[in-house]
């Protein structure tokens, strides 16, 4: 069942490829603006790199959150999904998983490339990828709660940011912290563990919250 929801959402995303690309390009452009604006001061660039890349990843994933449930809500498929003989949180998990694959994985893959602009050492690029790999599920999971809560509201996009961005702060601190530790030459492990812990916590709680919010939204 889960597999069908993921497959459905991946097919839908593939038919609207432009949406995926716009998220990726947004990420690339935002990250690239900083080296262009600051100039070739490698020392400074290296020290701001973790924060800039992580903040850009947060903003890019915000962009795609509106679409998570809105299209299904509009054409009535969300109602049909809620009426399928499976727990609603399974539906949510499937959709969040598909969102992660479609909107977050491309960011993870492109991150080392954009990271080169900041003169980050090679080993650290791997830590950057690893931190994004562990951290981006948190963005999708927490974001789904915001997307479900703002469903059907006018100006929902801005409201999602206000609701969700504060909840992203732990992921931002640990994710950027891991990369920074690696640049400083210390071990990034504690940051990555904490990031992993927040991924697990959000995996446990957010599908339930999203499911409850979705039920309210169709009433």
């Amino acid at each position, binding site marked *: *069942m889960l597999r*069908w*929801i993921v*497959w*459905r959402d991946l*097919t*839908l995303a593939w*038919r*609207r490829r432009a949406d995926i690309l716009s998220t990726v390009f947004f990420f690339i452009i935002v990250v690239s603006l900083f080296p262009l604006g600051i100039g070739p001061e490698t020392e400074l660039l290296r020290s701001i790199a973790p924060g800039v890349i992580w903040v850009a990843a947060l903003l890019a994933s915000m962009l795609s959150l509106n679409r998570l449930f809105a299209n299904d809500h*509009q*054409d*009535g*498929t969300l*109602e*049909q*999904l*809620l*009426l*399928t*003989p*499976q*727990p609603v949180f399974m539906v949510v998990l499937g959709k969040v998983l598909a969102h992660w694959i479609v909107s977050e994985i491309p960011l993870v893959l492109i991150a080392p490339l954009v990271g080169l602009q900041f003169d980050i050492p090679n080993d650290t690029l791997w830590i950057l990828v690893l931190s994004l790999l562990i951290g981006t599920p948190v963005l999708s999971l927490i974001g789904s709660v915001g997307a479900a809560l703002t469903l059907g509201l006018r100006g929902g996009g801005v409201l999602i940011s206000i609701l969700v961005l504060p909840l992203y702060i732990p992921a931002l601190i640990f994710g950027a912290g891991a990369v920074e530790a690696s640049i400083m030459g210390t071990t990034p492990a504690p940051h990555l563990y904490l990031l992993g812990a927040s991924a697990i916590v959000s995996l446990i709680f957010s599908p339930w919250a999203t499911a409850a919010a979705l039920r309210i939204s*169709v*009433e």
Partner: protein
Amino acid sequence: MRGDRRLFSGLDLSLAAGTYLQVTGPNGSGKTSLLRILCGLLAPAEGEIKWQGESIRSLAEDFFTSVTYLGHRHGVKDELSAIENLRISNALNGIVVTKDRAREVLARMGLAGRESLPARLLSEGQRRRVALGRLLTCNTKLWLLDEVLTSLDKSAVDLIRSLIEEHLASGGIAIVATHQDLAIAAGSSQRLELAT
């Protein structure tokens, strides 16, 4: 209850297998709300809905294996073709529909030759036919159809009538909210008129 307004009250109704119930009433009288309450999308302000003697709240997901609800937003994805729409919506309900079976169903719905077109290229009526194709595959006991006749031509309405009649003959229940009289020839046909 919608907002502060009480739409209907004192509604007590039980339907036996093979019953057709037509819900009528002026716009805003609560036909859609009633159907959404019956399928569990909306919680009633008071009272409860029972299915085979058990409250649908306690049955939760198990209830959904016996009910098919089609609302006026038909739930057909524009990006998917007719055949994909039919197969995916069935798969999500745990029913595997092969490509050939889906083609057969769509042919009966009058969509032969248009199975692989993205649904956004179909007309409103054709998209509704795709949605209604689920009635042929769903294998559920209770059908809740909300204004499904909108934008359907005469041949499609005849088709729906025969589908409902087959369903009733095999012991199913159909509750249809509509302004049009479907003239179902069934053993027991009832009419519920909601007032404003």
